[in-house]
């Protein structure tokens, strides 16, 4: 939980540079971003603008080259692997574009998976959390199914349940509708919206303006920088020209 008046996530002057052979690629250049608790934020921008990189850094899957990152008021940019894993497990819920369910595990086991990494969590608690999460996404009746036996939309709902099971501070969704048809995409967006209404903090990456509009706030990225919507349009026109 955040302290009163303090954003859940605060990013200051964040940069990320990728080095490949002799080429430096500046994926993020001086990004400032705050996400408040209970907020539903959409990050959009053209392909290669750095939105997925930013989401990965927010999700502690990656580390910034420079800049500060505060999660729940604590700096997290220089944590070791184990501590980052612990925070990811307890504070962050991921929803991936390609669902990333594990094919050998059942629906139940997939949702349970992050909870198994928590030490000393009683099995009964785990079960309760898993069933609650699956109930919330409407997949409780498919607990014994394997991912290959589900449709894309159902798989993404299971992925959402997996993200919810850990009761994270924030849900990070990376193109959650990217692999779904429009009907299933809408259904997932509706699910996220419901979760938001119930108090969840959500940060979603999408390049689809229709889905971005579901969010309370939209942040635009271009060439690794956060830009205003009007500026983005202008830059896009310049690029296209």
């Amino acid at each position, binding site marked *: 939980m955040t302290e009163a008046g303090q954003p859940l996530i605060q990013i200051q002057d964040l940069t990320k540079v990728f080095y490949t052979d002799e080429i430096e690629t500046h994926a993020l250049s001086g990004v400032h971003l705050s996400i408040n608790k209970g907020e539903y934020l959409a990050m959009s921008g053209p392909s290669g603008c750095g939105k997925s990189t930013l989401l990965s850094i927010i999700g502690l*899957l990656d580390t910034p080259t420079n800049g500060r990152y505060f999660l729940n008021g604590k700096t997290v940019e220089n944590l070791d692997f*184990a501590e980052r894993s612990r925070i990811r497990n307890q504070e962050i819920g991921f929803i991936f574009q390609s669902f990333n369910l594990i094919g050998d595990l059942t629906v139940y086991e997939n949702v349970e998976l992050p909870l198994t990494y928590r030490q000393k969590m009683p099995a009964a608690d785990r079960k309760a959390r898993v069933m609650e999460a699956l109930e919330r996404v409407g997949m409780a009746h498919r607990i014994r199914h394997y991912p290959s036996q589900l449709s894309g939309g159902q798989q993404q709902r299971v992925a959402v349940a997996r993200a919810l099971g*850990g009761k994270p501070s924030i849900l990070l969704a990376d193109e959650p509708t990217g692999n779904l048809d429009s009907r299933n995409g809408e259904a997932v967006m509706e699910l996220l919206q419901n979760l938001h209404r119930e108090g969840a903090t959500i940060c979603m990456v999408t390049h689809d303006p229709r889905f971005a509009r579901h969010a309370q706030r939209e942040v635009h990225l271009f060439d690794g920088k956060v830009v205003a919507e009007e500026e983005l349009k202008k830059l896009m026109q310049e690029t296209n020209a």
Partner: protein
Amino acid sequence: MSGLLQDLRYALRQLRKNPGFTAVAVIALALGIGLSTTIFSVFYNGVLNPFPYRDANRLTVILALDKDHGSENRAMFHLDDVAAFRQGNHTFDDIVAYSGWDVIYSRQSSSEPVHGCVLTPNAMGFWGVPPLLGRGLTEQDSEPNANPVAVLSYAYWQSMFNGDKAVLGTTMMLDGHARTVVGVMPKRFGLYGADLYIPIAWNRPEPSLAEAFDSPDPTYFFATGIIKRKVSLQTAAADIQVIAQALVPLHRQDYPEHFQMTAKPMNDVIVDDFKQTVTLLIAAVILLMLISSSNVASLLLTHHTARAREIALRAALGATRGRLIRQLFVESLVLGLAGCMVGCFLSYLGLRVVTLTPGLQVPGEADMSLNWPVLFFAVGLALLTTLFFGLAPALFAVRKDLRSSLQTTGVNVNTSSGGARLRAGLVVGQVAFSMLLLVFAGLMMRSFFAIIHFDPGINTQGLLGAEIHFPPHQYDSVENKRAFFDQVLPRIAALPGVTQAAVSFGVPLEGGPETDDVTIPGRPHDKHWMTRFDAVSEEYFPALGLRLLQGRLLSAADVASGSRVAVVNRTLVKSYFGDQNPIGQQIKFNVLDEIPKAPHDAYFQIVGVVNDYNNFGLQRSIMPQAFFPYTFTGVADRSLVVRTVVNPSLLVNNIRQIFASVDPNILLLHPGTVDDYLQNFEYMKPKFRLVSFGACAAIGLGLALIGLFGVMAYSVTLQTHEFGVRIALGAQAGNILGFVLRKGLLLVGSGILLGLLASALSVRIVKSQLWGVSAFDLGTFVLAPLALLATGLLACYVPARRAMRVDPMVALRQE
């Protein structure tokens, strides 16, 4: 045909493109084929075909079985008995007699012992091996007035005459008599391990006992025949039995009261123990080949899986399944033949090791080379294993769904449980076979350690033994022998580093004379009390480190006066006296009555008891034994026993000089340490078993670990994305490590359990090869699985570390 060539070209290109895969597969196959071919060569050349002789598979040794003792205790007969067998039988094409003939070869500068062999006139035709140089022995050579001749063995010709062809016609002075060298036998002809061969007439006069002691000419001969075709061994034995029964009145002492003539293939007599070992090794290499083949099958399965898209594309373009299978099979065949070539080279090296290892119980005349049958075996094995390891993965590879294969990237294809199960099954099989080999090798190791740590009852370190050969007739009296030893023993004892020097009949542990029976007043007995005896000087006991348990040891006065006193070992007391006090009791060694110049009807008073030592080799039961003064008689050659605190071998020249200063005609023969004897004769077979089974087990373990590593590494590659997901969801490094290790543990554990079960069921077959350890040795059955578990987990650890280091960003992008 052109399609096949195209397949071959493509196969070569594929293998060149994947050098790592090709190298591992070829090495795995080469190790399996190499060791299998080596063992097969030892089996074929050393067990099935060890002799260079004509009709070698019909050579049959005639033996007399003592039915009361149940052992084949007579393999040698009087020459006229063998002649009677030859003339009277209806079941042999021919029978030959041969025996040892140990003499001294006197040259201008020195004298050398020669281990000769006397052969009956029919011998050269019988063995059917033409000489390399000159001529062989003929019927005329054994006639009474013939010029004495000798035929040299190849090895002796090389060592003594440097392979000089001018040796023909040379005169050799053998025990003071001239013999002309008329021929040299080829390299493989090594009958009796002799240096040279001389003729003996079938009708030579039988020597009296006294003559037998004074002459190198043998009294007893081995009898070997060529059994007629379609005649059984039992029929031949029964045939000889009739003749032998008629001979009993002539040589009553040679035939036990209840005897049965037997006939055994010469092959079995010479290579019997070796055959058992090699047969077991054949079983071991079959296991090794199974490991090797399944290892390569597993590799191919992975290789083909990674090529699923290419295979699917070929099928989409019209290739039939048969065509695809052929192409993949040709690749396997190329691998198999490459493995065969490297394996043959490894086998060549292995056979060099086998033939160059001193003391290894490989029949001396065997030709341990990569001959045609062995090469044929290697190629056959390669083809067979190719069928095994190549066909199943090829069939599996072409069975997959085209559409899904075409959509894959090739990295994370075939996560289907079928492929994974097959790979896992192959690895479990490899671990199980490896477990079996490890248990066998572990038992051999325990057996080897049991024998090298066995206490023989004497201190073997720093103990030198050598035979002393006296010139004929000059030292037959007690006085002459004593005069010689009174001069040399104190001088040897005074050499720096020598603590004791003693005389005896035999060298410790190598045995010595024995008597069929003893007479102890007041102790009648039905069965023969076979007893060893030795004639020693007083320093013999401290030299060997024998401990006095009761009474006293032989004194210098006993030895000086040739007193009829004896010290006995504890086994003799237990066997013949039970709980009674043996001190003061009388004992007669009956065989002495048969030796012309030995004291007859001589009773020795027991004055002391010493601890037992293994007087008949380490692996046989201790026999009752007595020691009495060496001065009881002057007959026969003697041995020297020297205890030192320095390397005993360094003293041999000094001792020879001392001998030469007293009488240059007295020779010190075959000097060697008791430890050397143990190494060469007692430890060598267990060591051979340990090394050969150990090699199989080590290679098997290595291959199984490669297989396990391969499967785990491939599994980690397939699961990279999954690990990325798990890490993204908060899995710690330990979680990932545990996940991978658990998977590996399941494979290793299943293999170990299967292997242990197979070991428990099959371990009885190695029982005959073990000494001093149970076939169900707990230590082996605990340590071997633990070792396999530990190394197995180590093999899993490397892929597990890779899994731990998966970058979730990279892994998730692979989707």
